[in-house]
């Protein structure tokens, strides 16, 4: 199978999953699509030049998406839009109050630094172990634990400021 065919199959098989990771990182549909598109193009170029295809295409592309996310966030100085507002906000005391809490947690995730967000997405969305995240980000495992810990602490603070139930937080 040549590279074009391989990439075609990979996008058909893993495209949705990569875009979901991109969306978790950026909280923005267009930005997520740009991220994955740019990662695909970079990988296409790299593999074509190098002549060797990765053994695990999904892991390879996910790494490219994460790297692209961190690279573009380093370059970007402006603030980003965190999330679209819900079309109709339910009252806080209603049975749908939990939706509010979740919206605050989602917004708090968007407030974290790019590396903290990447670590939390890889750990809690992709289910990677800290060692795997460290290998992917090119840092030590202790750094991953530190980023995750600081990210969670910041989220607790942001969520509590927004009135989300924080009892029982450890």
């Amino acid at each position, binding site marked *: 199978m040549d590279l074009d065919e391989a990439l*075609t199959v990979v996008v058909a098989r893993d495209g949705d999953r990569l875009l979901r990771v991109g969306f978790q990182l950026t909280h923005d549909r267009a930005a997520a699509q740009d991220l994955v598109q740019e990662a695909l*193009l970079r990988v296409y170029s790299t593999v074509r030049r190098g002549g060797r295809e990765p053994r695990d295409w999904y892991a390879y592309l996910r790494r490219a998406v994460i790297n692209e996310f961190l690279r573009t966030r380093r370059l970007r100085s402006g603030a980003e839009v965190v999330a679209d507002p819900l079309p109709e906000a339910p009252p806080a005391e*209603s049975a749908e109050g939990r939706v509010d809490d979740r919206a605050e947690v*989602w917004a708090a995730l968007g407030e974290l630094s790019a590396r903290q967000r990447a670590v939390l997405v890889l750990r809690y969305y992709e289910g990677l172990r800290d060692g795997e995240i460290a290998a992917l980000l090119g840092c030590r495992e202790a750094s991953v634990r530190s980023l995750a810990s600081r990210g969670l602490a910041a989220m607790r603070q942001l969520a509590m400021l927004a009135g989300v139930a924080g009892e029982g*937080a450890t």
Partner: protein
Amino acid sequence: MSDIEELLGQVMADHDDEAPRAADLLRALAAAEAPAETWSWRRRRRLAVRGLAGRAGRARWLTSAAAAIAVAAVMIGSAWAGGLIGGRNGTRTGIHHTTRLAELTCPAKYRGVAPWVPARPAGIGGRSRLAPLRTPISAVVCGYLPNLRHKNLAGHLVGHALTRQRQLTGGLAALVGDLAWLPRLLPGQPIPCLTVLGPQSNYLIGLAYRSGGRIWVSTTADATGCVMTSNGDFTTFANVSAEAAKAVRTGRWPEPPQVVSCGSGGRLGQETVMVPAGSTSLTICAARVVRTVTSGFQGLVAALNALPARTSTRGCSSKPPFHGQNYQLEFGYPQGPAVQVRVSSYCYPAIDNLSLQAYSAKTILPLIEQMLRAS
């Protein structure tokens, strides 16, 4: 695991269905190769800023990647990737020979990835509707049934060579009614779609008008309904391949069924308002009950249209208690298809007409229940 960690995992999962789909990505990659009129200015500016468009070396493999990946569009339901490329390549097919004739002839080949049309609408508007609200002087239906020589990437047979064609001798008014009212696919609207499974039959419907105008419409029969229907300028997620299949066999476009569908269909205008004006009946479909009323439901229409709405993702996430009422509301009109609105008490966004969604149904559910009690 702490509460925030647990909540974080749930929140991430909650937002899964908001992510763009691979079809969106394929569309963007295909657009990188598409002609100016099909190119999103926003994306063009973005790519230009990043220098993608201007660098020859990079643009070459960008094009190559786009072309390769566009092939996969048929597998995952891209509305545009193949259609745009096909539309550009085949503009002379079929129609070239028929400019002096009232009747169009079918192209010998379906030359692109569906939805492909041999030419964009000419001499008549094709941007506001799939086909004008005007009876054509002639209509031809072309069938491209699967053959052994063409397969998609999943290995399933795809129709590319013309296998049947028929000039329609009847049902032209029904044809207009079916095509003219189909809802528009909104820009960027995600279509949840499984990989195309099973054989894929393509159909072209050619319409010629007294003014000399011509429109070709592509519609595709596939097991998962992944492929859109389009005239090249207007695309809809609705599908008329079953009617086209019948028409190519009988020479008549079939009359629309006069039964309540409770869930299928859609109507032009539902992209801008949940229930377009002019509805004359409402059928409420619940688990065990189907009720139709012809009056007293305009308050419900007004309440639905007053909700803040956004582009539909055609999905919802169940929330506790994970059970409750689900209603399918079917608003009928004197002409053209009904509008279907799903209303749920536990799945959010709770209201969805396949083009627009509104988050909460708490003002709508009491009205529905009141109407069911009264009828």
